[in-house]
C-alpha cells in the first residue's frame, strides 16, 4: 500500500482527508497507564485539580494529527516530517475529535517540494482543542 497523495494535486488551501476520533475513558487509561494515578486515568484525581472529569493526555491529539500526515504522505512524513501542537483546551471523556490538516504553503526546494501545513483538532462543540503546524519535504522521484 502506498498512501502518498500526488503533490501536484495540492496547493494552498488543500485539506487532507480528515479523521474522526472517539475519546473513551478506556482508551485514555490504556494510553496513559504507565503514569499510574493521574488526571488522565482517575476521575476523582482529576476533580481534585478542578476538572469536571478525567482529561486525555495532550499527546493523544498530537498523535491523531500525525496519523493524518502518515496516511497522506507515508515515507515522506516518517523520514523527516516535523509537527508542533499547542494544547489549547482539555479533551474530556466522551469527546469526539475532528482531526484536520490543510496546506498553507508549497514551495520548490533542491531535493523536492516542501509543504507547510496548518494542523488542528476540533471537538464536537466546534472548539479548537489543539492547533499547530507541520512541515515535510516531498522528495523527488
Amino acid at each position, binding site marked *: 500500500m502506498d498512501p502518498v497523495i500526488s503533490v501536484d494535486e495540492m496547493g494552498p488551501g488543500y485539506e487532507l482527508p480528515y479523521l474522526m476520533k472517539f475519546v473513551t475513558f478506556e482508551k485514555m487509561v*490504556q494510553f496513559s497507564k504507565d503514569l499510574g494515578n493521574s488526571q488522565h486515568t482517575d476521575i476523582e484525581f482529576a476533580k481534585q485539580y478542578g476538572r469536571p472529569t478525567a482529561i486525555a493526555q495532550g499527546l493523544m491529539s498530537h498523535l491523531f494529527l500525525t*496519523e493524518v500526515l502518515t496516511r497522506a504522505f507515508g515515507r515522506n512524513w516518517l523520514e523527516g516530517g*516535523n509537527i508542533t501542537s499547542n494544547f489549547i483546551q482539555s479533551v474530556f471523556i466522551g469527546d469526539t475529535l475532528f482531526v484536520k490538516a490543510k496546506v498553507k504553503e508549497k514551495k520548490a526546494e533542491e531535493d523536492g517540494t516542501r509543504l507547510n501545513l496548518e494542523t488542528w483538532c476540533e471537538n464536537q462543540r466546534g472548539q479548537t482543542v489543539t492547533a499547530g503546524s507541520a512541515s515535510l519535504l516531498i522528495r523527488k522521484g
Partner: protein
Amino acid sequence: MEFNLPLDKVVPDEHWELVEEFVITPELNRRFIDCLEDHFPWYTDDSPYKGPIAEPGALHEMAFMAMMRRFPVAPPAGKQSVHAKQESQFYYPARVGAKVKIEVRLTEKYVKRGKDYILHEARLTDEDGRILLISRHFRMIGERG
C-alpha cells in the same frame, strides 16, 4: 508516579543523558494501535521497511515516561503542571522488534506571561545508532483548575 523534584532545583543542561532502553514488542505496538485507533497497515503488516513498524504513539509515550522519571518536576503548592506544547521531529520509523535507546535532557526553564515553563527533550535511536525521533515536551506550571 511521584513528582518530587522542586522547580527551583531544576538546572537546564544541554547534555544528553542515556536513561532507558526498551524493545518495541508486538504487544506494546498493539497497545498504541488500539488506544489511538490507528489501523494504518504498516504497523501490523508489511511495510517499505521490511516488516511492521512502530505506531508513533509507542515511541512518544515511552519518551514521555522517560522524561518524567528523570525529571519528576513538582509544581509548587496550589499549582499544577500541564503539557502545553509538543514538537516532534520524525527521522526514521522504528521496526517492531527493535531495541530503542532513550536519551533525555531538560534544556530550558523560563517565565512567559507570569507562568513558569520547562522544556524536556528526548532523543530516540535504534541499535545502529540511527536517530528515530526527537520529542520536545513543553510543560507549563500554572494555577489549578
